[in-house]
């Protein structure tokens, strides 16, 4: 949009902001490139060389970080896929179909918007214990699947799709499911991407649930794993390695974001189109 170029002051503020955003990350990067021993008590040593990749080599050499990364990816992708499937199905039902209790059920879902996950996390923990779901991927994924926001969001979006399309498809002999699958679902692509980004980030950054559900280190997600590794002590003697873990853990998702930045914004914009 060509409306109003930024003033020099605006640019300066923007660049300063960018610097504030970036400085801690650059600092982390520098720390991760230093020999651990050099950093004991002297984190300032990271400002100058020599730099080394040994901390990254160590991650690949022998460490749980890769495993945690895999877990995080599985949980975040699984949650995202699950949310999209469940929310799409349910939203189609709520947006388009008539069935007994439809309004009641939808109101129940809307009420769920106000339930903080913390309000139910303790009984959830009990429940998952009874179901023997702790320390498993389903155990980590399931609580993320029931976000009422996803249904609210998708239903709202689907209601914006002209009903004529459903009707045309029904006249074209499509079954309810075909209408959903071949006509409505493709049209929700922007909403799907937006929801996917939200869900993925939320799941990737979730802390408390994996903290109490994934208690075996081979089931840790990155968040919990790094918290376990990040003892006070490690901050002193293994700082470089710790930071390398942090960088390594953030890299994949960052790369994905950079690669899809445009699509993500466009998808979000598309979410409100029409």
């Amino acid at each position, binding site marked *: 949009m060509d409306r109003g170029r930024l003033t020099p002051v605006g640019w300066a503020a923007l660049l300063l902001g960018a610097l504030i955003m970036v400085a801690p990350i650059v600092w982390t990067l520098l720390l991760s490139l230093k020999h651990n021993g050099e950093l004991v008590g002297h984190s300032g040593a990271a400002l100058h060389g020599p730099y080394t990749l040994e901390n990254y080599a160590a991650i690949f050499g022998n460490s749980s970080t890769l495993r945690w990364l895999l877990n995080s990816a599985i949980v975040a992708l699984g949650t995202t896929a699950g949310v999209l499937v469940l929310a799409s199905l349910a939203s189609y039902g709520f947006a388009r179909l008539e069935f007994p209790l439809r309004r009641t059920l939808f109101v129940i879902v809307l009420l769920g918007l106000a339930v903080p996950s913390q309000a139910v996390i303790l009984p959830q923990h009990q429940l998952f214990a009874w179901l023997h779901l702790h320390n498993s991927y389903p155990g980590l994924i399931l609580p993320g699947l029931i976000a009422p926001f996803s249904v609210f969001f998708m239903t709202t979006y689907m209601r914006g799709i002209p009903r*004529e399309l459903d*009707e045309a*498809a*029904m*006249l074209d*002999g*499509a079954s309810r499911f075909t209408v959903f699958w*071949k*006509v409505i679902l493709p049209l929700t*692509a922007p909403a799907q991407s937006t929801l996917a980004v939200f869900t993925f980030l939320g799941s990737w950054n979730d802390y408390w649930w994996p903290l109490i559900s994934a208690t075996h280190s081979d089931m840790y997600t990155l968040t919990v794993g790094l918290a376990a590794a990040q003892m006070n002590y490690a901050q002193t003697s293994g700082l470089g390695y710790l930071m390398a873990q942090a960088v390594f853990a953030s890299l994949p998702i960052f790369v994905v974001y950079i690669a899809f930045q445009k699509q993500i914004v466009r998808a979000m914009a598309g979410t409100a189109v029409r």
Partner: protein
Amino acid sequence: MATLELSNIRKAYGGTPVLDDVSLSVAEREFIAFLGPSGSGKSTLLRIIAGLETLDAGEVRLGGERIDPLPPGRRGVAMVFQHYALYPHMSVRENMAFGLRNARVPREEIEARVAEAARVLEIEAQLDKKPAQMSGGQRQRVAIGRAIVKQPRLFLLDEPLSNLDAALRMRTRVELAQLRQRVDAAFIMVTHDQAEAMTLADRIVVMNDRRIQQVGAPMEIYSRPANTFVARFVGSPAMTLAPAALSDGEGPFARVRLASGAEVETRVPRAGLPAGDGLLLGLRPEMVSVTAPGAGTADAEVMLLERLGERTLVYARLAGGQDVTAEDKGDSPLRTGDRIGLRLDGAAAHLFGPDGAGHHAEAAR
């Protein structure tokens, strides 16, 4: 033999009736227009035929087979939607093929039918485009094409021309007329545009207030409106309806007196007309001509002139306050405020009873 048979259809939306005991029979290859104001139930009726709405009572039969319990896709009908309802994510080809695929028509046949429809509609070059890349007129053709390929027994058109600009509307009207010549199916078109209905339809079904008001050929609807609603709704500008009382008299035809005192001799048989006042005299503009003051049936004042080129519409007010629309020649010298005389052509006038039912001049038959 009737293709489509609607019997005693009733429909209500939660207590509010929208269709009340509607019956209709459509002949083979007939083109029917549902004409009526919005809220008259015409769209609901169309959607009931399509299967997009359920009915509360009654039956829909197509080719003798009862179709109202069937899902829309199995009724052998095709529909062209007001906003086309093209699938935005599919190409034109896919849009047209979608219904056939669902019906498991063999692939070669699908291709053949799509190609034929595209040829007829002259959209062959657009087959791989998405709807968003096309103009409104092209989309309209795709929507028609999507209906054609299904080879339905009945086409349902929901206000098909309302989204087009005036020029395109005229062209498409012609094309629709040509289309019906080519295909072996009946057509039902919902419209609120009487010109569209008059030009395209074999018969017009005028609907209002949950009911069919009149069914008939276009000219019959125009010249013998069944009731005041039809009289007012069909024809532009609308027919003047002036309160009138039956004058005493002996002749076979009714003579009525307007509030202004003017008397009009009609050709409507006196027999069958209710006695006393409470009648309405119906006059189309072409039945009212302008004369010098005092020279006509009644005197009036010009309120407004609408110059249409080849003729001029004169909106005038009689002494009793009754508004009348008259017609004058294109280069009429009249000006607003002029006193004029009006000659009411009683021979072509209509009379409507207190129940609204129309009584028409015998000669018009």
